């Protein structure tokens, strides 16, 4: 009967290996499909970009906001849905700024002028930085605009939202990344 036992072990081991390989292959294929190399739960990668509306700061680094909740909003002036959600962000910003949440809007236009004119028109007070080479956009695997990452006080990504936000769900996500006082 020892032979039968050996056979069972051999079969079980080989089947397990092949099933694990299959699961791995299916999993990587399904995730790479969405090009989401960055996942919820991952550390938000650091970057440094020139600021558009902060007078005393040439550039801004993500790590400057360690310990705070950070919303990263990828947007452009030519993106319609981005324009719709901007007023919501502006509306909620002052209250959440008090609670230790920062909103950083990462603009993807090429020209500075169009962004400056947009800022004047919409009266945005949260920091806006410009990523003219789309390098940070690639770093965050952003394809379609708008896209928002909500980063918790621990520096980990809590939500990744593609598409425009409503006022309600924006507030919900901001609450999720508010540090405990």
């Amino acid at each position: 009967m020892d032979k039968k036992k050996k056979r069972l072990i051999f079969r079980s081991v080989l089947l397990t290996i092949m099933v694990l390989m299959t699961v791995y292959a299916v999993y990587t294929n399904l995730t790479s499909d969405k090009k989401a190399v960055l996942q919820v739960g991952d550390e938000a990668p650091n970057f440094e970009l020139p600021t558009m509306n902060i007078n005393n700061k040439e550039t801004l680094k993500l790590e400057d906001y360690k310990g705070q909740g950070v919303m990263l909003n990828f947007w452009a002036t030519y993106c319609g849905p981005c324009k719709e959600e901007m007023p919501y962000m502006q509306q909620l910003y002052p209250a959440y700024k008090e609670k230790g949440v920062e909103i950083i809007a990462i603009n993807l236009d090429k020209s500075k002028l169009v962004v400056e004119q947009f800022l004047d028109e919409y009266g945005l007070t949260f920091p806006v930085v410009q990523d003219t080479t789309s390098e940070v956009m690639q770093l965050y695997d952003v394809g379609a605009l708008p896209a928002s990452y909500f980063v918790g006080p621990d520096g980990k990504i809590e939500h990744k939202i593609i598409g425009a936000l409503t006022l309600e769900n924006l507030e919900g996500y901001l609450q999720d990344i508010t540090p405990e006082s």
Partner: protein
Amino acid sequence: MGNRTCECGHVNPKGTVLCESCGKPMEGNQHIDGNEPNKLLNMRYDGSARRSKTYNKTFVDKVWNFFSSVKVGVWLIVLVLVASAIGTIYPQEMNNQSPLPAAQYYVEEYGITGKIYYQLGFHDLYGSWWYLLLVAGLAISLVIASLDRVVPLYRSLKKQKPKRHTTFMQRQRLFGKAEQATEQDKEEMIANLKKKRYKITEQEGHVLAEKGRFSRWGPYVNHIGLIIFLMGVMLRSVPFMYIDETLWVREGETEPIPGTDGQYYIENVDFFVETYDESDPRFKDALEQEGTVVSNYQTDAIIYERTDDGLPGVEPELTKIQEGAIQVNNPIKVDGFGLYQTTYQLNEFKSMSFKIHETNDKEEKAIGGEFTIDLMNPESEYILENGMRVEIVSYFPEFDMEDGEPVSVSKYPKNPAFVLNVYPPEDPNSPETSFLAIGANLDPEENNQYKVSITNFETRDVTGLTITKDRTLWILALGGLIFMIGVVQGMYWPHRRIWIQPKEQGFWLAAHTNKNWFGMKKEIQQVIEGTDVPMVNDQVEQEQ
């Protein structure tokens, strides 16, 4: 499961159909290969004990036996084929140029069938989980079915003895009695067989002549190759092994090469399209018929490596490492990445120059000189030589009207438009507004004293490159090579065996081949030439 010990004394594994040693049909197991009603023996796998047919108790065994079945394997192949065929009915998502997301595209373009097609994942077949499971199931089936057959077959062919059971001899397709044959005839036959490169083994006067046994391993070698190939394909989902990206670079601009984590950058120095010379007598006739024919698409490029360790987003410090031309089928290679010329856009606007003149001046004489707007990065205002000020109120790089509002649909100056304010020198506080676009120069109030007119523009080309890295190619090549070796091994050599069994009068002759019976018979004829041995009978032909 029948008696395991044969009368020749050999102990066979459970489920053996034909004794490994002497080939005698094992009592109680003949149904396995369907030998019962037939005169001839089924020689597939040499009557060895395929475990899948014999042992079926635990859950693991049941799974194992499911995949071990050739029937299951064939069905998996059929399903993969049918799914792949259906996947060609509508375009795959990756080849789809439509700006619509897939969820909308298929239903809007093809209606209800398109919707089903999308929902079942046929639009991205290689990425849909059930297709992957089918292929993985096929791979598992290949491994298990092969293992379950190659091991017993190997064992059986290794254990076979020249001394065969009489039943085995009689129930071979090629069988004959040479009752008049002498010992000398036998020796001559053996000599002839040796000349034909048969391997001879003898046991108490019984002879086995065998050649081409290695051809029996062909299918299994072939399966190993197929599995290596499939693994190579699976590895393509790992970015370390495989990258396939596109990159647009404008002339004069430097962009990070995707997939390199910002390590390498490429500058587009110049892009151009060349055509065959129409005055060349060699091409003249053909070109007159065909019109213009392109002879070359080329990007002159410089490759840089980033030498600082700044954060992403910071202006990089770059060192030139390579310079050259990218042409179709002639890429630049850098650190395992290939940069291929795939597409282009000619004549995107780069800058525009304007002059200001009095609206009612027919000659449009410029006042205060010209100003040039860099369309990638315009200034907010331009001051002319005479102190006149032009302010850009709005800039639309790719102008379009949306719900009656002027908007830009991209960041690239493909269709630039401006709202400009001109501050007349005599009255710097009351600007005149005008709207300029390609083919439009509007004065909303229709009372402007000054008019802005375009005098000149500069364009540049955009090159479209494909960035590829493929570290799986050698795996695919290796798998393909082993696959082909297996095919050749199994297809081009037959496994032939001839048995000689001594009798009181003369001897019996039986022969088996796994393919090409005609060749086998011809070879026997050559081997018995010049002897008193009669030709063997083809018992299949006799029956018909």
